[in-house]
């Protein structure tokens, strides 16, 4: 049984399951993308943003 078949039988076949899976995975997907991209962004711009230098002035 291929992956596509498993996916079909467990997720896609029933709309009720399908919508639950969409809701749950979008939640985790969005958090993952947000956290991942923000940490990458902070790494690209290390030392340049205000949060990197504000400790000197407080």
């Amino acid at each position, binding site marked *: 049984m291929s992956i596509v078949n498993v996916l079909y039988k467990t997720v896609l076949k029933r709309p009720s399951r399908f919508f639950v899976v969409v809701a749950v995975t979008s939640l985790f997907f969005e958090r993952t*993308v947000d956290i991942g*991209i923000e940490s990458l*962004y902070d790494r690209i711009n290390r030392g*340049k943003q205000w949060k*990197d*230098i504000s400790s000197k002035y*407080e």
Partner: protein
Amino acid sequence: MTSSTFSFFKAASRWSKNHKFFLTSFGVLAGGGSSIIYALEQSIHASNDAAHVAKQKWNHNGWFDTLDHASVRRGWEVYKNVCAACHSVEYLAYRELVGVCLTENEAKAEAAEQMIEDGPDETGAMFKRPGKLSDLIPKPYPNEEAARYANNGAYPPDLTYITQARIDGENYIFSLLTGYMDPPAGVVLAENQHFNPYFPGGAIGMAQALYDEIIEYEDGTPATQSQCAKDVVTFLKWCAEPEHDTRKLFAMKAFTILGVLNLVVWYLHRHYWSVMKTRKIFQSPKSLFKK
């Protein structure tokens, strides 16, 4: 060649005359219009007598590069101590500096140093009070007439959106600030005018404002002329585009999510076209060879 010959323009041969006429005129108008706009834009550059500005390597130039906020902070010092004598940033409030180049306490202290007109009080009179975070940064002149009167008729423009309001933005302002020189032979300047090759016409009402060591940075950076110019331009860039850093962060997120969606679209494309792409067509052109 007969009309039954295969042609790339077969669809067009079935169109009505009006249809063809409409599409042809649309194409000619669109193409001609764009060419005219392009030509006019080029001629503006060609007829300008100002020196072409150098492209500087701003460290916020990349797609995902934020502004250098230490530089924004120094630029605010330069604006406050040098530019603010004549130029306003009238759309900027003290609260907007918090978390960008000042801490909240610093911004409150700087606002409190300024006396802001408020009122009317219960007698109907306006009164002065120390500034608050919500106040706009005070203007050096109350209105344009006062500014012109104080500057021999030249109006110092508001600097809030100046990097957006000039061709070549940051590069132009940097070149202008560092480009003052003695007028070449034959150029006659009126009284109170100065020569700057980057200013259209060359004669500018603003005197050279930035010199080496004109201010002392609190973080100890050597305040050379070009350093001051770079910092104040970075500050003005933030001022004109306060959403700059967030915009680039969202660009990164958008590219990521669109990249994932692209995979889905690519798969669907393959899926929908699989029938068409894998079919085989046999053609037996009997009629051609029939005697």
